[in-house]
């Protein structure tokens, strides 16, 4: 630095010397001293330029200019603090929203499993193209495969170096009763093949992982997840060797998994892993097979998920072909299907490098839609900022003209102006990153609907790179047009302009740029506002639909006594006791129980066969069925239309009965009386398993807020022989949440080892089912409002600016007799024209975008005319507001003042 300063001083001295010498020469030639000095300077040329050229030769120029630009930029930005703050804030919102959504996309869709060589992993799945008689039944249709097939596969296969089997211990995230030192609680676990940890390449953090020996010798051991170890044991390493009870069975803790390992499914982190073992207590999916049977020997029932690690050199296609052969063998060999029937099953191998895709499947499309939304917001912010900078650049015309006149090159000025934009963008990006960290967390809470999603939001390099790239791109995007535009001016006329600049044509190219920026903002805003309208109306339609039952004032909870040793008649007796105890509680109107609560998303589904074959030709209809206790229909207020509901008289020993809904009755019996008719689940009617229809109820939604009401059958839980974990529904007189403590007490009084799971109100459950819709409605409205505000600011700025420039023109008009109202109309008309042009551009875009999200809508078409006209109306209203102030100012122009303005 010091050396540079000395060199600069020397250069100055050199130049001074030179000019002095030349002056002396000129004097010697007889010039008068004054003229001699002037001639010497002229002969030397532009000293500033010479110095700059020399410095360029020295090579510091690049850094030096950057420093200059930054300093100068800071000064200019500080000179207009309000503008700078508005710009930085709108950029921060735009960039922050993008980073927030991106970090969620990263966590859900981009992050690799923390295992060895994740790209070698594939997940096997199968689905059937048509119902097949004698085909498999599933726990987890589409993801589950045959256990017997798995055994054969791991004994012998050519394509995988390891074959890993795993299955959750229940449908709910927490379905296993754990007893640690006498304290019952609930946790979620997975049953895995012995090679699970070795095959994935995950070591144990403490102790050892599970091994093949654990599975073969049924050692009753478990490995805890890092999170569970932290929550339950405070990361005590001495926990290895300790015995805890899982589902009623003592298990010894042998190890703890590393912190980054969340299992193979992002968003569903098991608390513990146990080896695959055919033992009572812990069963795959918490399914309780009928007495004397086992899921492990039942070749007909598929419940195991399978992952394979490809051998080096084996292509996914080779593996798929091999697995297709394996699937056919399993179907024909183990299930005895015919070849043509086996053809109805399709095997799929999906890359599992990022884990199972349940969370991806659920959230990838919403996240992409949100990414599009925030991308639009950023574009609008860019257009807005570009407009503001353009207006300011206009005010800086003089400055720029002076600098051009002094010999600055245009490229140099563009660079200076771009540096300023990039500084703004960088400031916006920094603030935006701060917003994003906080915004992503809020989003995560919104996405999970109150329950916590076990997703790690790391602030990793990918996100930093994304933030930097977006900020820089933004800076160039909004900075380039104004800086190119404002440096394209002819120096002479600009310098001669009066301070007001009123002699300028109001329709020059820069003005056109400003107008197109406003129109672009309007177009993009229309996209967001229509989107918000569509999503909000979808949510309203969903929330106000007739569900067919009354969700208000009902509290729900689940219990799983099968893990405490209850089964058969004892289990049913326990449920009866619990129900009686709960019904006796003060504040309880009615109570019942069912296998699945409404809107939980879980269902049983099966085809049915009707006695006498009075079925319609469409045999592929699937019936959803629920196991329910007495008074279920009454408790949920599902209206009885014919016959009776299921009541106390329907016990394990009484004749089997069922209640069906209207749709089912209409489909299978048309106008005939359905009462007294019988059906069985399955493809053929079996008299000894038949249920007699004793009642018909009004259609009610079951598992899903959307779509048609499914064909539904309700059967008494005591008569199915499939009784397992159940859920209770309790209708209360007052606030249902107030009843929860006494419910817990009541259950504890019946059996102190029972833990309640999934305690919530029916309304909460519906809210959870509508999480995505709420998220969309909320975020789309928020960003739509933001976009409207930005567009209004843009329009206001542009109109104020034009009105200012046209003061003298307006003065002349008024002097010639134009009325105030005419001027007002003229300015408002211009604003309207801009909005209408923008809307005309935005409308086809908005229609196309709406079609993209059509699957997310409910109860209205993607091209809903009401929403679209309302959105355009809203924009015109906002535009009127934004343009009214400038228009009024224009109409109040005093002609005399305006004409003297110059």
């Amino acid at each position, binding site marked *: 630095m010091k050396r540079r300063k000395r060199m600069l001083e020397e*250069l100055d001295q050199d130049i001074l010397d030179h000019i002095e*010498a030349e002056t002396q020469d000129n004097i010697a030639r007889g010039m008068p001293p004054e003229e001699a000095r002037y001639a010497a300077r002229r002969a030397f040329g532009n000293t500033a*330029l010479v110095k700059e050229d020399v410095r360029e*030769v020295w090579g510091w120029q690049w850094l030096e200019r950057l420093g200059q630009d930054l300093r100068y930029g800071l000064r200019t930005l500080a000179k207009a603090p309000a503008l700078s703050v508005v710009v930085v804030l709108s950029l921060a919102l735009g960039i922050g929203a993008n980073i927030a959504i991106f970090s969620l996309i990263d966590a859900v869709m981009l992050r690799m499993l923390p295992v060895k060589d994740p790209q070698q992993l594939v997940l096997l799945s199968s689905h059937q193209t048509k119902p097949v008689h004698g085909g498999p039944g599933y726990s987890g249709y589409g993801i589950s495969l045959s256990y017997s097939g798995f055994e054969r596969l791991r004994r012998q296969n050519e394509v995988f170096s390891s074959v890993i089997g795993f299955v959750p211990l229940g449908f709910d995230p927490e379905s296993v009763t754990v007893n640690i030192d006498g304290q019952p609680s609930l946790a979620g676990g997975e049953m895995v093949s012995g090679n699970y940890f070795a095959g994935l390449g995950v070591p144990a953090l403490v102790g050892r992982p599970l091994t093949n020996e654990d599975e073969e010798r049924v050692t009753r051991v478990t490995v805890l997840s890092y999170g569970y170890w932290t929550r339950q044991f405070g990361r005590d390493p001495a926990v290895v060797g300790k015995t805890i009870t899982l589902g009623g069975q003592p298990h010894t803790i042998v190890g703890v998994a590393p912190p980054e390992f969340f299992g193979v499914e992002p968003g569903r982190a098991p608390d513990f892993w146990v080896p695959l073992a055919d033992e009572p207590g812990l069963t795959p999916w918490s399914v309780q097979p009928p007495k004397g049977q086992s899921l492990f020997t039942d070749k007909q029932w598929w419940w195991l998920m399978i992952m394979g690690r490809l051998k080096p050199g084996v292509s996914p296609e080779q593996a798929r072909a091999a697995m297709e052969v394996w699937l056919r063998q399993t179907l024909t060999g183990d299930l005895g299907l015919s070849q043509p029937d086996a053809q109805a099953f399709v095997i799929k191998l999906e890359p599992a490098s990022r884990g199972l895709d349940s969370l991806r499947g659920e959230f990838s499309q919403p996240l992409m839609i949100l990414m599009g939304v925030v991308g639009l917001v950023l574009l609008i912010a860019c257009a807005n900022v570009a407009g503001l900078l353009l207006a300011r650049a206009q005010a800086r015309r003089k400055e720029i003209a002076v600098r051009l006149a002094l010999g600055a090159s245009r490229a140099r000025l563009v660079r200076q102006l771009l540096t300023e934009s990039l500084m703004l963008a960088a400031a916006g990006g920094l603030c935006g990153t701060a917003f994003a960290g906080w915004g992503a967390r809020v989003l995560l809470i919104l996405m999970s609907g109150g329950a916590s999603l076990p997703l790690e939001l790391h602030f990793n390099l990918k996100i930093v790179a994304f933030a930097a790239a977006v900020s820089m791109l933004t800076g160039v995007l909004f900075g380039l047009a104004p800086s190119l535009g404002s440096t394209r001016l002819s120096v002479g006329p600009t310098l001669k302009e009066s301070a007001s600049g009123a002699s300028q044509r109001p329709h020059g190219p820069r003005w056109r740029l400003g107008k197109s920026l406003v129109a672009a903002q309007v177009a993009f805003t229309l996209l967001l506002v229509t989107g918000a309208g569509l999503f909000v109306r979808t949510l309203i339609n969903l929330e106000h639909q007739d569900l067919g039952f009354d969700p208000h004032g009902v509290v729900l909870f689940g219990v799983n006594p099968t893990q405490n040793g209850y089964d058969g008649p004892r289990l049913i007796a326990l449920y009866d006791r619990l129900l009686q105890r709960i019904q006796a509680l003060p504040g309880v109107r009615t109570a019942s129980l069912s296998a699945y609560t409404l809107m939980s998303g879980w269902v049983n589904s099966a085809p049915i066969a009707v006695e006498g074959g009075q079925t319609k030709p469409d045999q592929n209809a699937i019936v959803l069925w629920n196991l329910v206790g007495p008074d279920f229909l009454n408790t949920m207020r599902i209206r009885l239309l014919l016959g009776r509901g299921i009541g106390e008289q329907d016990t394990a020993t009484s004749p089997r009965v069922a209640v069906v809904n209207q749709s089912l009755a209409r489909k299978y019996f048309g106008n005939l009386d359905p009462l007294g008719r019988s059906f069985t689940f399955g493809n053929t009617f079996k008299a000894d398993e038949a249920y007699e229809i004793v009642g018909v109820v009004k259609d009610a939604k079951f598992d899903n807020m959307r779509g048609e009401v499914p064909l539904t059958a309700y059967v008494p839980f005591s008569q199915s022989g499939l009784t397992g974990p159940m859920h209770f529904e309790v209708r209360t007189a007052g606030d249902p949440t107030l009843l929860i403590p006494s419910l817990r007490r009541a259950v504890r009084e019946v059996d102190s080892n029972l833990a309640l799971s999934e305690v919530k109100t029916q309304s909460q459950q519906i809210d959870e089912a509508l999480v995505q819709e709420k998220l969309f409605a909320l975020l789309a409205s928020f960003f739509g409002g933001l976009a409207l505000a930005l567009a209004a600011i843009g329009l206001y700025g542009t109109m104020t600016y034009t009105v200012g420039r046209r003061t003298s023109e307006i003065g002349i008009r008024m002097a010639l007799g134009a009325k105030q109202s005419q001027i007002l109309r003229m300015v408002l008309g211009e604003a309207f024209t801009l909005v209408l042009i923008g809307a005309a551009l935005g409308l086809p875009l908005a229609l196309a975008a709406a079609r993209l999200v059509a699957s997310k809508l409910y109860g209205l078409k993607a091209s809903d005319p009401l929403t679209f006209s309302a959105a355009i109306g809203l924009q015109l209203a906002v535009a009127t507001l934004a343009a009214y102030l400038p228009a009024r100012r224009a109409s109040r122009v005093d002609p005399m003042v305006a004409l003297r303005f110059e």
Partner: protein
Amino acid sequence: MSTREERERIELLQGTLDLLILRTLLFGPAHGHAIAKAIERNSQNVLQVEQGSLYPALHRLIRRGWISAEAGTSENNRRAKYYRLTAQGRKQLNIERTKWGKLAGAIARILRPAEQQRSEP
């Protein structure tokens, strides 16, 4: 592309100016003003160099190691910076001179027929 053409033209000029500076310093060290004057004088005022453009060229030659700068006193006893040709610069001058000779010869050959035609009548 106009910018590229411009750059080539500037480079040509710079190269020429470099050659002229080296040639001037062959007679001994000189300060900036003296170099400018010498170029003007020796070219019989045909080459009007904007005097300021000398300085970037001088600093470029210093960077390449073809000339060196030292403090000295001028004729009228003022402190001034003197530029001196280095051994490497001397070599470079020969190279540049040959190059220039070839270039000038080539251009002359191209231009000559036209001149002859014009001078015939």
